[in-house]
């Protein structure tokens, strides 16, 4: 079991509430996934800077002076906002790739959770309510976001085993289900140069999508390809800079509910996650079809 929530706002006036609404949805899915939780949130970008979300087991040591060290290395202004075990670094967009490389050298123990113009990813072990509190997620604003509560089946309960997984710049994936061919796929993807941090099946799905997109597919095509190459159970929710998408495997035994109004599109593993959204009484509510890619974009 796992829980997934997602909220994609059409009405800009709701953007200040995004973090609060998504946090409540996430906490409502605690009994589907009490061992860890995570959230990817798409905030505002200024068009000139990009964000890198990093994580460290020793944040006091790793984050201290990192903005200055990285700035000196890149020859650019760098800002860093630390939140518990995570920090968001902002660098000039032109320096994003250089910054990712420099981070590996300057702070080898720091893990990159994701990067892009607007995405921030926070995930940790512990109850969803504690994860929400730790990163002050309820205060965050943004255009859309996805969240996940994990009940681990395929790999250990660790920060890096929690979802969302980054699949590329401003892209992420969360998963409810289990893949049975992940070991074989991991071997094939490694041969094609993909790097892995965990034994987790969802990380393989994320790397698979990144790999397909690196070979020229768009996200929709990559998800379609995944329907035949990924063996197992999945309800996936993906986030991109401008949109979010949903796809379920052909058997579709992992639950999913979608709701749409003039103001938002919302996803929940169960209706409970949607029950307190404003205007839910008048929303169009349905269960996404198996093997069908749904996508909304701003």
């Amino acid at each position, binding site marked *: 079991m796992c829980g997934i929530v997602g909220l994609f706002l059409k009405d800009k006036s709701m953007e200040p509430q995004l973090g609060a609404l998504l946090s409540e949805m996430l906490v409502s899915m605690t009994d589907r996934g009490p061992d860890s939780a995570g959230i990817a949130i798409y905030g505002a970008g200024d068009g000139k800077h990009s964000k890198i979300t990093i994580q460290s087991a020793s944040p006091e040591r790793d984050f201290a002076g990192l903005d200055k060290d990285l700035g000196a290395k890149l020859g650019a202004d760098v800002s860093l906002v630390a939140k518990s075990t995570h920090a968001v670094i902002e660098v000039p967009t032109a320096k994003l790739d250089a910054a990712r490389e420099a981070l590996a050298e300057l702070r080898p123990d720091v893990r990159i959770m994701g990067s892009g113009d607007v995405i921030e990813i926070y995930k940790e072990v512990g109850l969803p309510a504690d994860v929400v509190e730790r990163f002050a997620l309820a205060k965050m604003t943004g255009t859309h976001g996805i969240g996940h509560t994990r009940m681990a089946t395929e790999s250990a309960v660790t920060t890096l085993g929690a979802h969302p997984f980054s699949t590329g710049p401003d892209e992420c994936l969360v998963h409810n289900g289990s893949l049975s061919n992940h070991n074989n796929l991991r071997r094939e993807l490694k041969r094609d140069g993909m790097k892995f941090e965990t034994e987790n099946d969802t990380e393989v799905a994320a790397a698979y999508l990144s790999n397909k997109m690196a070979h020229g597919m768009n996200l929709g095509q990559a998800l379609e390809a995944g329907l035949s190459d990924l063996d197992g159970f999945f309800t996936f929710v993906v986030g991109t800079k401008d949109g979010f998408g949903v796809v379920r495997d052909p058997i*579709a*035994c992992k*639950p999913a*509910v979608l709701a749409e109004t003039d103001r938002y599109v919302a996803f929940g593993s*169960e*209706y*409970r*996650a*949607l*029950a*307190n959204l404003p205007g839910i009484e008048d929303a169009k*509510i*349905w*269960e996404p079809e*198996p093997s069908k890619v749904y996508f909304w974009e701003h």
Partner: protein
Amino acid sequence: MPTVDLAKSTLRELNHALHNIKDGSNETAWEVVNPKGSHSVAVGVDAPVKVDVHGSVGYYCGGMNSEATITVHGSVGPGVGENMMSGAIFVKGDASQYAGATGRGGLLVIEGNASSRCGISMKGINIVVHGNIGHMSAFMAQSGNLVVLGDAGDALGDSIYEARLFVRGKVKSLGADCIEKEMRPEHIELLAGLLEKAGVTGVKPEEFTRYGSARTLYNFNIDNADAY
């Protein structure tokens, strides 16, 4: 008329109260408000009472129901009426996966659509769906009747035993050993009765096609030994 507000009472309090209705009690009509997707609402009721649930519920609503008439004024999550014994459940909205799974008796009416595996392993229940049903419905269905006014998804009635399936719309595909069968007068009569009980009007039994078991999987065919 007792009303239970699930914003104030726990689910356990509701179900405990429903399980403790004494024979001859005058509390025969119950209202449940603010379910907000709660699981296991009105599970295991064993008394001839009415329960009206105002709002949508989560998993297993009305599971194991015996004698009660439960109406959900909203949609239901997976497993509504699972292993129902008797009585009736009316769902005004849609139903998620495996509605009426393993149901042994009673009537389950879904006024919207039902999703995958509707009536899986049904064992005597009657299910009437006003809309469409999803894939793998009536998988290994043993007895009872599944009536669908709309369309059916892939692999309808896979490995079916003796349940009867009546579909008015299109069937995307039939599962293993499920075939179209003729509508004889007794089937028209049966279907007319079920439609009436389910409150369906303006639809004639003659508009339906009957599906059932070809009975070729009942015994092992030695010619297939190589396949295993």
